[in-house]
């Protein structure tokens, strides 16, 4: 099958106009050795119906998280209103390119402008770009920004930053001759080591990977004392509705992934990373920016701007190589935020945090389970389990519960500890069911040891 509309007759007409006999002649410039003379070794074509069935079958082999899913760890299952998907499926949004021709792209451009505005308001920054690949890449971008702004080379990163983001930094840091210094957590909270004048920036996440709300004000203040740039990574950005904003406590660059505010889990992508910053760093920000201006008749309009930062103008001198970004995902976030509004987003955050604190209370009273950290937290709670946490996860799975995240993979110090996440999409009854399951999960195991 294909979507090529040319009939045999069309092909004849086209070839005649070109002055060729056969379509294959058009490929004559390919040297014989480089020309494929066999068919590609791929499965045979399927009709639309068959391909849909095939994909349905593949999809059915996955276990779909329900209300009984308590997995967060960097991707959060919040409720997304139906309007969001309706809008992003609008042909005029979905099948447009990057808005190079602003006169026929005002829809995309204005929505980017609205995205930028709302993300600035949420983070307390002055400028936000039109999205980058994901939250991890946004953190890398911010570090590169800081290295280039400061001319320094050390980057102090909290152990509370998402482990995968820390991996990314390790992958990329050499390209900028940077040096990564990891600041360990103490009881789940970041403590900076000595910061000297080689430090370009610090980078911490709040709420951090273990769910803890960091003391952002203190961390930023210490960073600034050292003349470094405080970069803040946002855990779940819905928390910005109820927690002090990075801009309020001294952050100068704020990054994160907007997935939790408008995007489905999607097995990890596409999401929408963002980089926001204070005005002074504006010209160093990577990615597209949309600005408000006027047209030749003085009417308001929007266009891409400050493109001198970008690869298509600056080539090897550009600050970033990004071209295609996560536009449609950013649009989804824009629609989500417009739908939820200040009160709605606050309620999402409150409901999530309340359920997490409700769980904490319940789990603390369960035999064998222990709260690991004694810190303020948002919607994720670290719990030490009696016995093997991995086995516990399997048991829960058998009951249709997607349990928490096994942190020992990334934090060996927290053996048999699970990070449970709660959002408004769980609901109290699901939390009660989880608690109940936890309470009974280890019975058979205990029984087994006794016999």
């Amino acid at each position, binding site marked *: 099958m294909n979507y090529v509309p040319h009939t045999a007759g069309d092909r004849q007409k086209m070839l005649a106009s070109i002055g060729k006999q056969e379509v294959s002649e058009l490929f004559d410039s390919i040297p014989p050795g480089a020309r494929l003379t066999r068919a590609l070794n791929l499965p045979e074509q399927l009709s639309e119906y068959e391909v849909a069935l095939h994909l349905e079958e593949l*999809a059915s082999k996955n276990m779909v998280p329900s209300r009984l*899913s308590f997995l967060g760890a960097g991707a959060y299952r919040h409720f997304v209103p139906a309007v969001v998907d309706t*809008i992003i499926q609008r042909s005029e949004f979905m099948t447009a390119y990057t808005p190079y021709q602003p006169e026929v792209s005002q829809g995309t451009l204005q929505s980017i402008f609205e995205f930028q505005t709302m993300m600035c308001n949420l983070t307390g920054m002055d400028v936000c770009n039109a999205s980058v*690949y994901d939250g991890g890449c946004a953190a890398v971008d911010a570090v590169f920004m800081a290295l280039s702004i400061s001319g320094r080379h050390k980057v102090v990163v909290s152990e509370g930053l998402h482990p995968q983001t820390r991996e990314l930094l390790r992958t990329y840091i050499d390209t900028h001759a940077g040096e990564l210094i990891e600041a360990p957590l103490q009881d789940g909270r970041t403590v900076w080591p000595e910061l000297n004048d080689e430090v370009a920036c610090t980078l911490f996440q709040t709420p951090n990977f273990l769910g803890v709300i960091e003391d952002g004000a203190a961390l930023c203040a210490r960073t600034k004392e050292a003349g470094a740039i405080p970069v803040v990574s946002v855990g779940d950005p819905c928390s910005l509705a109820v927690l002090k904003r990075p801009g309020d406590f001294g952050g100068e660059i704020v990054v994160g992934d907007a997935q939790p505010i408008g995007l489905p889990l999607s097995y990890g992508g596409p999401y929408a990373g963002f980089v926001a910053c204070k005005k002074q760093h504006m010209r160093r920000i990577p990615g597209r920016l949309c600005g408000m201006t006027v047209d030749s008749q003085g009417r308001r309009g929007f266009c891409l701007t400050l493109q001198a930062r970008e690869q298509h103008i600056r080539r090897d001198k550009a600050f970033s190589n990004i071209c295609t970004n996560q536009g449609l995902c950013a649009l989804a976030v824009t629609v989500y935020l*417009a739908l939820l509004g200040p009160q709605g987003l606050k309620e999402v955050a409150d*409901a999530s945090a309340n359920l997490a604190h409700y769980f904490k209370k319940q789990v603390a009273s369960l035999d064998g389970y222990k709260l690991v950290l004694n810190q303020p937290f948002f919607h994720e709670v670290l719990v030490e389990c009696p016995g093997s946490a991995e086995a516990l996860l399997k048991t829960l799975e058998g009951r249709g519960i997607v349990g928490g*995240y096994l942190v020992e993979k990334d934090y060996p110090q927290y053996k048999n500890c699970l990070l449970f996440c709660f959002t408004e999409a769980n609901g109290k009854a699901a939390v009660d069911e989880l608690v109940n399951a936890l309470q009974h999960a280890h019975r058979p195991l205990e029984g087994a040891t006794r016999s």
Partner: protein
Amino acid sequence: MSLTAEPTLFEKTSPGRRGVIPPQENTGLNWRDEVAAELVSEKPPELPELSELEVMRHFVRLSQLNYGIDTTMYPLGSCTMKYNPRINEVTARLPGFARLHPMQSEDTAQGALEMMYHLQNHLAEITGMDGITLQPAAGAQGELTALLMVAAYYRKRGEDQRKVVVVPDSSHGTNPASAALAGFDVVTVPSNANGDVDLEALKPHLNEKLACLMLTNPSTLGLFENGIQTIAKGVHEAGGLLYYDGANMNALLGNARPGDMGFDLVHLNLHKTFSTPHGGGGPGAGPVGARGELVKYLPAPVVDRVDGKFRFFKPENSIGRIRTFWGNFLVLVRAYTYIRYHGPQGLKEVGEGAVLAANYLLSRLKGHYEVAYDRTCMHEFVLTARTSKKEKNVKAMDIAKRLLDYGYYAPTVYFPLIVEEALMIEPTETESLETLNRFADTMLKIAEEDPDLVRSAPHSTPVSRLDEVRAARKPVLRWEEGLS
């Protein structure tokens, strides 16, 4: 219809108005009681307050100010704006894919991993590579990924001195930008009169400092690189690697493979060749393929099948992780759907259709517009308005803007940089002969139109040409009280 400007969300806000209300449940406690007051904000965030209908209407109206493939031909060169099949939107929304949590155990995501495993293999076959990573989120990230692999490869071989990446002067901006970002020194080689890489100019760089030559083939001029085999030989003999920018792979589908031309590394743009929607800027996906030894350097994780189970694993000399989670997964679902729909024959027809459409359009425009390089083109071609500019003061941009008046999106303009007043046209295989003819007729008409009319275009769009200088000089990048 009144396609008037739509006020911003912030001008429509009304205090206390609610849109969607999230689920709420009384847990009998308030988390704020347990958290220090200085961490918490009592003030709700500054977001607009609108009803659900107002939000819906706002974005529906905004959308109407856009052109898209679904509304018009979008001949944007280098971007492969072809029909985005709707079945792909259906498969990408299957709950078993869309609701899957990236941190679920592999055992509970076997369907997802199976799809990725097959997609890796299919892309390897299509490109003639030995291994594929699906991780990169776009072409540019693919480039960077591949160049990190190049760096790691030479580091491992003790050839740290290989610091030079060569790009032709027709190359896309991301190529030199990626090379520089990856820590390489970028050298640009000129093209010859034919539009190919100037082999003589290349030669001096084929030395022990050469890490990699990045080539787009067909080039950004829409031309198949005549010297490709000579180049490959030269690069390899100099100990360098050859990188394939797959942005233009659409032309070659099923007819030629970069692997067979001697390329060692490739990226694909699934949002181009495999028609996942561009979404007004993204998301995309930029899988990278590698040959031979280089496969071991692919980023982590890749999917493999072990004892009938699909698992993530980390290649031996992997450069590590290059993004969070496992790639732009739902984009991969769409591309996989596309490949399975087409099969080997369908994909070949795609490439042939694209090349046929471009050559046909070229044949219609030739004589009326100046062609930058008058050869058989592949999937796109480049016109130049240099004479028009000189004689009538009608620039490439003017022609582009005038096309908007006729309901077409514009070609890519002023790229590639080596063509003065470039107009780069890529019709794609999904436009019908009738549409190609109407577009050609319109182009011919514009060529005859009053230069004043063309210079002041567009005339029938929601806004006319925007003051981009003002936008850059006094950047207004967010809404604030007092703006209007």
